[in-house]
């Protein structure tokens, strides 16, 4: 005996998803086709066209400068990347790398403006905070379902799910960074007659840069953590190899692919962190 019958929440959401899918079909199709093609082109044609030795060399040089002319990161990158190629996972690595790059880029492009908006308006902050909490606590698997509904399977829904999961830190840290700029500096800026835009670009954003970069670093890491999950809906890459290992109870293959992800994670993390500390000085 229930006083209130079970609310058909699941149905509502189904209906809403269906409606969205139908209404924005042209948009989703466009993204699926053209953006999908572009991602494929980037991963398969562009990155794969680069000889492995050249790719590793370029990364090594970038690592040398990014880490302030030290050799630790260079050595790690060279050995790590060589190992992945040695294990025959180079193509998977390039796909994963592509997914992470696109997901992070889109997250940052969406996240920074929202963070700024949030910092400028108390109302926006009040509304966005629970939304961000929701986005981050909802199990990441759940995002795969509408992603498939909108974009069927492949790289594009993988990027979509990753963006939802990975955007919050950039928004949060941008907001935090701007709000942390001391009141006196804001007063100083105002006292010289800055417009809102001048204040944002000459004072707030430069001063929040370190914090925003920390947020971006987290966004990239979260995007990477979505790699395995996204491969469940057909996103190619190292994650797929892990899943295959799981399905075939093949510990060795799964572990080696997992190791590849760890290596990529460490390289990307050190790159973004070093970029941050260097510019923050």
């Amino acid at each position, binding site marked *: 005996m229930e006083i209130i019958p079970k609310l058909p929440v699941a149905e509502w959401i189904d209906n809403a998803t269906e409606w969205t899918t139908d209404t924005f079909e042209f948009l989703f199709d466009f993204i699926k086709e053209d953006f999908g093609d572009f991602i494929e082109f980037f991963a398969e044609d562009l990155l794969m066209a680069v000889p492995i030795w050249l790719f590793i060399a370029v990364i090594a040089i970038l690592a040398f400068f990014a880490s302030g002319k030290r050799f630790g990161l260079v050595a790690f990158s060279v050995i790590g990347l060589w190992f992945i190629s040695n294990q025959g996972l180079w193509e998977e690595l390039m796909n994963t790398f592509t997914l992470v790059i696109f997901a992070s880029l889109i997250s940052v492009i969406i996240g920074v403006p929202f963070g700024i908006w949030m910092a400028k308006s108390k109302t926006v902050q009040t509304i966005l905070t629970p939304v961000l909490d929701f986005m981050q606590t909802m199990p990441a698997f759940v995002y795969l379902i509408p992603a498939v509904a909108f974009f069927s399977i492949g790289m594009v829904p993988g990027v979509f799910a990753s963006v939802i999961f990975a955007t919050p830190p950039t928004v949060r840290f941008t907001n935090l960074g701007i709000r942390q700029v*001391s009141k*006196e500096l804001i*007063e*100083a800026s*105002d006292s*010289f*007659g800055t*417009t809102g835009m001048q204040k944002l670009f000459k004072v707030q954003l*430069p001063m929040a840069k370190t914090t925003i970069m920390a947020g971006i670093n987290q966004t990239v890491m979260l995007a990477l953590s979505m790699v395995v999950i996204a491969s469940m809906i057909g996103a190619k890459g190292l994650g797929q190899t892990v899943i295959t290992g799981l399905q075939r109870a093949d510990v060795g293959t799964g572990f080696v692919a997992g190791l590849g992800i760890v290596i990529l994670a460490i390289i990307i993390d050190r790159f973004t962190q070093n970029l941050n500390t260097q510019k923050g000085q």
Partner: protein
Amino acid sequence: MPVIKVENLSKIFGKNAKQATKLLDEGLSKEEILKKTGNTVGVNRASFEVEEGEIFVIMGLSGSGKSTLVRLINRLIEPTEGSVMIDEEDLAKMNKQDLRNVRREKLSMVFQKFALFPHRTILQNAEFGLEVQGIDKEERSKLAKESLDMVGLGEYIHQFPSQLSGGMQQRVGLARALANDPEVLLMDEAFSALDPLIRKEMQDELLELQDNMKKTILFITHDLDEALRIGDRIALMKDGKIVQIGTPEEILVNPANDYVEKFVEDVDRSKVLEAQHIMKRPETVDIEKHGPRAALERMRKEGLSSIYVVDRKRKLYGYVTADDVSAAAKQDKKDLHDILHTDVPKADMHTTMHEIFNMIHDSPVPIAVVEDDKLKGIIVRGAVIAALAGSEVSINGNHS
């Protein structure tokens, strides 16, 4: 004509601030209004005028509303009521665009904690105001460099603020404010974060700069010594209200109420009082008509061991001692010239007590206060000690 004219300016924090202003008009105090409405009175109907080229100091303890008041003037805080006229334009009623223009062209502010932009070099900091105005790179770099040269930082332009000491950082703050050549300089506790020696140096430098540039300066401080040192006029604030406005002397000698007097008690008077305030009318003899006998007679009568010698126009010649005079009288000399001492300890009207104190310590005779070679008064040891102890001093210097 005043450059800044503030009239009935009030700031009340909290909801329903407008209603609370009515209570202000009814004369309720800050505490009564807080009890009744829950609103905090920041500034309570302040009115004052600042003349062109004047250093006007607003001083009060923390919480007295002085920092709020200065922020009402460039509207970093929105006034609840009243007007701020700068060159006959009311800032309180201006739209945003006009306000920005006034801030860009007429008002500059120097902050207590310097508020330099840490991501910009010294030069870029000094350029900030000009950059905001949209002045092209070459021109603004030239003006900013001039401004930095003026405060003696011309060689540090490519450093970052964190590489400079506190005193140097505030010089940058000053240069930044001066770079766009404002009419009015607002200085909010500008030297309070500096240690005492540097603070004094900066005060001197500000006064020196002011001699050349003749800006209108509104200076906020909680330090009465500083206020007295640099202020042409001082406004004392308490609980958001201005309780007295006057020149340093007026405030010291004539405190308007207990609050002001309390403040004044703490002041090191030796730095503020001048010779003219503690000198007394001198006993003298006239070199043209008085001889040793007359001098001796006068000294005996007044109980003096020495006396100053002048002519009819009170031009100072020197002094004679009782011993010399009585010896001369015994020898029947008619003239004071032979026994005149000319090593007179001299001060002028504006010599500070501090210096007088050092002079009088090892001087055998009272100090002569001289203006245009004429003897205006003398200062005896007792007067100095009495003034230092804070007993009654008169601006006319007629008693000690």
